[in-house]
């Protein structure tokens, strides 16, 4: 098994931390993992992206030209990464603020309208967990229980009260995601 994933969006959407949670869950399942951010000032409000690779075997390059899965959370990310999904791969997007729908027909396109849902539920901080829940619903690359274990291990004790809300958000995302083609 090898899954090459790009998560891209605006800084502040929790793109990097979503990637980290995914990588941590992979680690707990005994997989090889890499987490490689595009770092710099773009973390503060511009576009941010992170490449996460989960694999049963040693990972060579941590940076990729094309991906099995692209999760795009804003228009610039859609424009940049839709063409770079491998044929037969998967594109997941949030339609909030998007001016153009994905056009490729040789990939599986999913929509997860997590932004609107998070606002509706007044749960903006768990937005990225809704997206992650959506991903894991259509591509269960790691077990939910490992995601929760990873969260528990990586969050400081004082934030553990937020764990149930995060788990609930993943369930919301799983119900929310729809296939578009």
């Amino acid at each position, binding site marked *: 098994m090898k899954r090459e994933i790009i998560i891209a969006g605006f800084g502040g959407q929790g793109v990097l931390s979503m990637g*980290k949670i995914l990588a941590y869950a992979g*680690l707990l399942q005994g997989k*090889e*993992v*890499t987490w490689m951010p595009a770092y710099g000032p773009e973390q503060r409000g511009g576009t941010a992206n992170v490449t996460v690779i989960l694999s049963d075997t040693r990972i*060579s*390059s*941590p*940076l990729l030209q094309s991906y099995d899965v692209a999760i795009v959370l804003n228009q610039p990310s859609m424009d940049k990464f839709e063409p770079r999904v491998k044929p037969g791969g998967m594109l997941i997007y949030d339609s909030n603020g998007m001016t153009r729908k994905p056009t490729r027909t040789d990939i599986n396109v999913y929509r997860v309208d997590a932004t609107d849902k998070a606002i509706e539920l007044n749960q903006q901080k768990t937005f990225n967990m809704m997206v992650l829940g959506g991903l894991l619903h259509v591509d269960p690359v790691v077990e939910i229980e490992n995601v929760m274990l990873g969260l528990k291990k990586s969050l400081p004790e004082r934030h553990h009260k937020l764990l149930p809300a995060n788990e609930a958000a993943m369930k919301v995302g799983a119900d929310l995601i729809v296939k578009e083609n």
Partner: protein
Amino acid sequence: MAEEVKLMKGNEAIAHAAIRCGCDGYFGYPITPQSEVMETLMAQKPWETTGMVVLQAESETSSINMVYGGAACGKKVMTSSSSPGVSLMQEGVSYIACAELPCLIVNVMRGGPGLGTIQPSQGDYFQTTKGGGHGDYRLITLSPSTVQEMADFVGLGFDLAFKYQTPSVLLADGVIGQMMEKIVLPDFKPRRTDEEVRKECPWGTMGKNGRKDRNVVTSLALESEVMQETNNRLQAKYKAIEENEVRFEEHNCEDAEYVFVAFGSVARICESAMEILRAEGHKVGVLRPITLWPFPTKEIQRLTKQVKGFMDVELNCGQMVEDVRLAVNGQVPVGFYGRQGGIIPTAEEIAEAFKAQMVK
């Protein structure tokens, strides 16, 4: 101690490894993309556990001179920075090399010249391996390509520095500094007691403490004959390092007709390029120098007899390729592909560049 697998950035791994290998002091100044080293150390507060000193200096000039002061006591001290900051340190590095002091200098390279970019680069190969400061000196240069090696090379760098009484450099690119990977941290090694430091480094300047003769650490020798002797001693030491400490890693070189030569993160991308090219029927291998100085010259000379050519790939305009060409000495073609400004080539791009240059 049970091995616990953790997920962390290369920069964080350096900080944890420093605490665990019994480091006595870290002195640094923030600069992207390596600020997590000091940030992690400050968050860990090792002065409360191991007694390690962590100090934010006013500049890289000051940091490296603090390293000089600590190293001259025989203490295990280090600094970390990124390219422009390391340029500022070069005066101190030359003094430390001449005074024959052990220390560890971490450079998580970003793109230059000038203020450049904060994105990854390998543009400081020349500066590090050829001696960025004045005078004839060399620096043991370790190049990690995984987060695990970021941690492992902290201990190794110190071991080599103390073995040869010379500075070691951990020369990483921004990719390895910022990337998170699985890592098993090295076991805890206690800091040496002052008595142990005095025994290991009888030249150290922690006060005479009953010693008959005073210790003086200096790099000054105004008499020409004395300075000549200093140079002879340094060169003899460098020769011993060249003979004993070359480290490299090879993938599929046994039957290779062509060999990629690359270090750091690029070596990993070349491995992916190798897989692409092997699938297309090209017999390609990868040679990754782990020590950039001493350079694996002999290994390249050995492979020269076997291969049709070498392909050097770097995140710069062509620096290590000069050492590859010196080793090959014109016997087979040596191609080069480099990207700058923080652009990381993909495996596909490297494979194409290889075919364009090497397979006619």
